[in-house]
């Protein structure tokens, strides 16, 4: 009797819905996902809450990785930051720590990200511009001057030369007298998404994968609290992917690292607990929350069932979230504060472990102190004022959210099958599969903006034609490049150059063999070999990667 009633009601509603006038608008998600006007129990027919959700801290972790989630510990508020010289960045870190930030996150400049020294021909004009320049251990010493590395966790966003930036960090910890076992933090170290989206590589995929596996093995023995990799969807999304592509490609990369390390002879439970993830939180509120919930469920299922991990920590998809840089507008930058707040809220409702909120001025320049303080305050309002951290996974059980979570999981599985058909992640990269999928999605979104099917306030609608920019803009002085190059030359002059040469030769020799390269990279860092010298030594053995340009 009851059931009949329910069905009749839904039908009645459907008829009234069809008769009502609808706005002339596009009701799909920002990724172009078609959405129903209403989600009901019918959408979850056959839904098994025990199997699909479990409880927080229990398989498949859809509702969160910890039993107590934010009641136990709030997410880490970690603002990605770096600019100019190591001294300038060191001051910004001290400023952020004083304002209540709870972890550090280093942004390196482009030459550093590509493993080039500040005086390399391609570095011209780029030194210190979008992050801090680090050429040698001496810069690492300045960057963390009077910051106790044993007491704060540090994240370093670097990929192609990640292993030798990390060994410079380790060498600096030695000089500070901090044992490796006490170091906590994360190295991004995710080369696959570089080929897919961010395009900062040095070698072809195989040698990069070896360096990553070597680092995982080294850290398992010597730096056990370190997250050796942060498998990142962030950049995939920034390059224009849909939410489902971000989810699928990121987790596929994760599986590829697991397979590579397993093939190298490591036990999955020896390295998997130190794998971490990094997702974007874009504007489409519910789709983003569903994406993060789906990520936990998919990872747990694959790690347990497919890769036979026994340690429950190996099943956990722990992740950092950054709000979407690509959603920020140069027009009316102050309203980016609101966009970022919504995206940050989605990250928290999605159950992130740490969060970066973008500053309002980031479509114009690196953030000013004022802008970054507001961004941090946004997180503090969510954490301490809004009340959303009081109950765990508050949207769990919502017809809409659970349906979306399931849909995203299905789409990701479809992509995994496609990638397998192409011969795996590396083969798919070489065929340009990911790059094409992303480029197409980016173009479609831009067209939707152009045709006003999608909107950006202040950009294609509600435009303020007489706008005057009223916020401070940070500028990096041209003198940074000169100063950094001068310092680099001083280091080259004053170090033990015989030791540098012998360590670099030993590295080259090891690279040609099969030994773990991390101890050799640490030896090079200790004697102040430069980032570029180490890159060049390895390029001699591994070669450089070239991408076929296409659009």
């Amino acid at each position, binding site marked *: 009797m009851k059931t009949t009633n329910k069905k009749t009601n839904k039908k009645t509603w459907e008829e009234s819905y069809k008769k009502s006038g609808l706005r002339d608008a596009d009701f799909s998600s920002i990724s172009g996902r078609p959405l129903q006007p209403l989600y009901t129990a019918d959408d979850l027919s056959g839904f098994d809450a025990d199997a699909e959700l479990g409880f927080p801290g229990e398989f498949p972790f859809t509702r969160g990785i910890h039993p107590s989630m934010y009641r136990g510990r709030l997410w880490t508020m970690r603002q990605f930051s770096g600019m100019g010289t190591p001294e300038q960045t060191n001051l910004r870190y001290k400023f952020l720590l004083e304002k209540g930030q709870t972890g550090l996150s280093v942004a390196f400049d*482009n*030459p550093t*990200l*590509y493993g*080039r020294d500040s005086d390399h*021909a*391609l*570095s*011209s*004009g*780029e030194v210190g*511009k*979008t992050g801090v320049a680090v050429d040698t251990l001496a810069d690492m010493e300045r960057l963390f001057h009077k910051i106790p590395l044993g007491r704060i966790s540090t994240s370093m966003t670097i990929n192609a030369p990640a292993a030798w930036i990390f060994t410079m960090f380790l060498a600096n910890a030695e000089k500070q007298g901090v044992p490796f076992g006490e170091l906590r933090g994360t190295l991004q170290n995710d080369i696959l998404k*570089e080929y897919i989206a*961010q*395009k*900062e590589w040095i070698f072809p995929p195989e040698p990069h994968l070896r360096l990553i596996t070597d680092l995982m093995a080294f850290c398992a023995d010597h730096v056990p609290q370190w997250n050796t990799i942060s498998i990142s969807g962030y950049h995939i999304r*920034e*390059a*224009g992917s849909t939410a489902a592509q971000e989810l699928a490609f990121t987790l596929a990369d994760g599986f590829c690292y697991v397979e590579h390390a397993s093939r190298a002879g490591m036990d999955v439970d020896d390295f998997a607990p130190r794998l971490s993830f990094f997702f974007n939180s874009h504007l489409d509120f519910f789709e983003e929350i569903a994406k993060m919930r789906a990520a936990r469920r998919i990872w747990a299922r694959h790690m347990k069932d497919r890769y036979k991990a026994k340690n429950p920590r190996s099943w956990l998809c722990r992740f950092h979230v950054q709000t979407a840089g*690509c959603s*920020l*507008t*140069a*027009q009316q930058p102050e309203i980016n504060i609101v966009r970022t707040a919504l995206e940050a809220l989605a990250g928290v409702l999605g159950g992130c472990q740490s969060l970066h909120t973008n500053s309002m001025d980031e*479509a*114009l*320049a690196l953030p000013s102190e004022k802008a970054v303080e507001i961004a941090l305050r946004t997180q503090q309002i969510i954490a301490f004022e809004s009340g959303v951290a009081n109950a765990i996974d508050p949207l769990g059980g919502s017809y809409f959210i659970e349906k979306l979570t399931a849909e995203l999981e299905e789409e990701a599985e479809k992509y995994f099958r496609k990638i397998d058909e192409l011969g795996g992640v590396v083969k798919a990269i070489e065929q340009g599969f990911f790059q094409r999928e992303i*480029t197409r999605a*980016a*173009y479609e979104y*831009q*067209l939707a*903006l*152009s045709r006003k099917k999608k909107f*950006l306030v*202040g*950009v*294609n609608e509600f435009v303020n034609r007489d706008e005057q*920019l009223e916020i401070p*803009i940070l*500028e*990096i002085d041209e003198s940074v490049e000169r100063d950094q190059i001068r310092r680099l030359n001083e280091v080259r002059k004053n170090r033990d150059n015989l030791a540098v040469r012998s360590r670099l030769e030993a590295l080259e020799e090891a690279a040609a063999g099969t030994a773990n390269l991390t101890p050799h990279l640490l030896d090079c860092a200790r004697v102040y070999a430069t980032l570029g010298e180490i890159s060049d030594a390895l390029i001699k053995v591994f070669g450089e990667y070239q*991408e*076929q*340009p*296409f*659009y």
Partner: protein
Amino acid sequence: MSDQKIKVIIAKPGLDGHDRGAKVVARALVEAGMEVVYLGLRQTPESIVNAAIEEDADVIGLSILSGAHMTHFRRVRELMAENGLDDRLLTGGGIIPTRDQEKLKEIGIPKVFGPGDDLQDIVSYIQNWHHSHTA
């Protein structure tokens, strides 16, 4: 002349992997009937100008989100002058502050585009320039 396609070189100079904008614009220009040669990443001012000579391009478009725009635009402009390409259009896009846009005007780059600019505006800008330079 008007039935001849406008030929555009698009390139990413320096160490900057942000190629979303460059690729989206390249596609939009092709859709608008132009011929696009996308050189890809890690280009130098020299490689870009050489390609423009080889391809006899009408337009060079640089995409720079790394903050190195002043260095690269200035150098490409100089090389264009040295190679007799002063009659071609140099433009581009990226994160380029208003203050720097003014400086770029002074060295012969009348307009660059930024976040939020409409694809159609970029297409029209190039078409209008071409029209006034071939009429």
